[in-house]
């Protein structure tokens, strides 16, 4: 047994282990995921993450707990930042394409001039 410097730390771990226990059988370690249970009724959070990630049907009204809402808000903020980044990149690429097209047209015009010059001279 490993000795611990703080008894309170040990008690914290023990209490956490009691409230979120693991089952240890001979060859298997398992636990029941309370948050994954399907819950119904408006006062308890419905599993919105399952509907998003596992494409399961959503009920008419969706209730989510603060943890899930924060997770979604964080993801949305990340997506918005990414969208803004991509929008800027698209704008930049449009300018590049416009510039390159102009250069290409200009070169074509020069080429046509060069090709048509001997004909005119003849």
């Amino acid at each position, binding site marked *: 047994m490993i000795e*611990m410097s703080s008894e309170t730390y040990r*008690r*914290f771990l023990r*209490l*956490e*282990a009691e409230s979120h226990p693991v089952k240890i059988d001979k060859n298997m370690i398992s636990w029941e995921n309370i948050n994954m249970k399907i819950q119904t009724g408006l006062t308890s959070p419905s599993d919105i993450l399952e509907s998003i990630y596992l494409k399961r049907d959503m009920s008419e009204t969706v209730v989510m707990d603060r943890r899930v809402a924060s997770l979604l808000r964080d993801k949305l903020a990340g997506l918005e930042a990414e969208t803004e980044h991509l929008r800027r990149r698209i704008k930049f690429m449009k300018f590049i394409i416009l510039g390159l097209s102009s250069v290409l047209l200009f070169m074509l015009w020069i080429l046509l001039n060069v090709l048509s010059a001997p004909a005119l001279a003849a």
Partner: protein
Amino acid sequence: MSLRSKIIDLENEIRSRFVGNEEAIQIMVLNQLHPRSTTLIRAPRGAGKSTLMLLMLRGVCGDDMVVISGASEVKRGEVIGRLHIPSLEREGVERVLWAAFTKSRGKGLDEVNRLNPYTTANIHHMMQFGEVWAYGQRAEVGDYTLVANENPTDATSFVHPQPFYDRFDVCLYLNSLTLSEKFQLQDLLERYDWNIVDSMPQVISFEELEEARREVAEVKLDPKIMGYINLLVRDFQVCIREKELSEVKPPTLCEGCHFIRDVCSMIKEPLSERATVALTRLAKAAKWLYGSCKLDDIFRMALWVLLHRVTLVRTGNLIDSLRGLLERERIKMEDRNMRRQWALLDQLMNGFDRGIYKLAREAAVEDVTFAEELMKLEERWVRENILSPEELLSIQMGWKTPASWSLRKR
């Protein structure tokens, strides 16, 4: 009347004279319940920071208070002590007359950001050691309540060092008043004849406050609450690349780091251990006053303990940014419970089991704080020849050279 009732009365008396900012008032009252309490109020001009400071000092100290107005001209003699010239001239003895600020139990520092660095250093020493020095003489400062305020956007500010601000237990930001609150303020001003501060009674004697402080110190917190306080502070400190010792700071330091999207990468300067002390004291005070202190209370109080102690990588609105980080931290704590991390660690404390160790390693690669604890156990297992050094999480992830390597080399 019991001490608890008096403290609740104090809160009510302040609330009846100060409009809005209910949470700030509640935290300020809770923060009075430990010895040598220090509170910093930050707000733009005219938001009521001086009024709130005076209301609190009057409520707990009555007339036994001194307020120093911050100005670069304020000298040590006015704040700490000055030489008694007649004694020096007649007897050749250096006698120090200690300033009223030093002797009073209620100490106020108005616009602390305007105090010159020399005077600030003397106050810093008083807050740190509970004593003052002048002309080679020392005076012990008894228990007190110190409330300071400042306007962080004030152009005439001195930039005081971070350790000075760290000595303040909490930092309260005040909001400006909403439309309806402005009407409330006008009603209040008329009710108290335009002098709100003078109408504030001394609700509790300082001796009673000291008694309440002793009782709060005796309060025992639930190990779970203690654990969550320590976890919260550790998550705001931890860095696998040891940012507290590194000259390169985030975000540069975080480039290529495994934990780049974690809370740690959002924090430039980590918290000091005083954050744990301040949060523990607030939790004890809440338990003493209201009978319980839950995890939600800890997160609510943490905002005011961390605001002046943490430097974030990106800050638009400091309060909103910190609230967002605390929200993420809350999710992280839930995730830890879902992964049964503490149950696994508890099992590993009782003895090594390869199956549990494997699960714990999987959790550790996503959680630095947990990884630290697991790595400590790993080092012990290496010494006991249960694990080989090559198997260590720290070696495989390239995080840190564990002490076991250096022990082996020796």
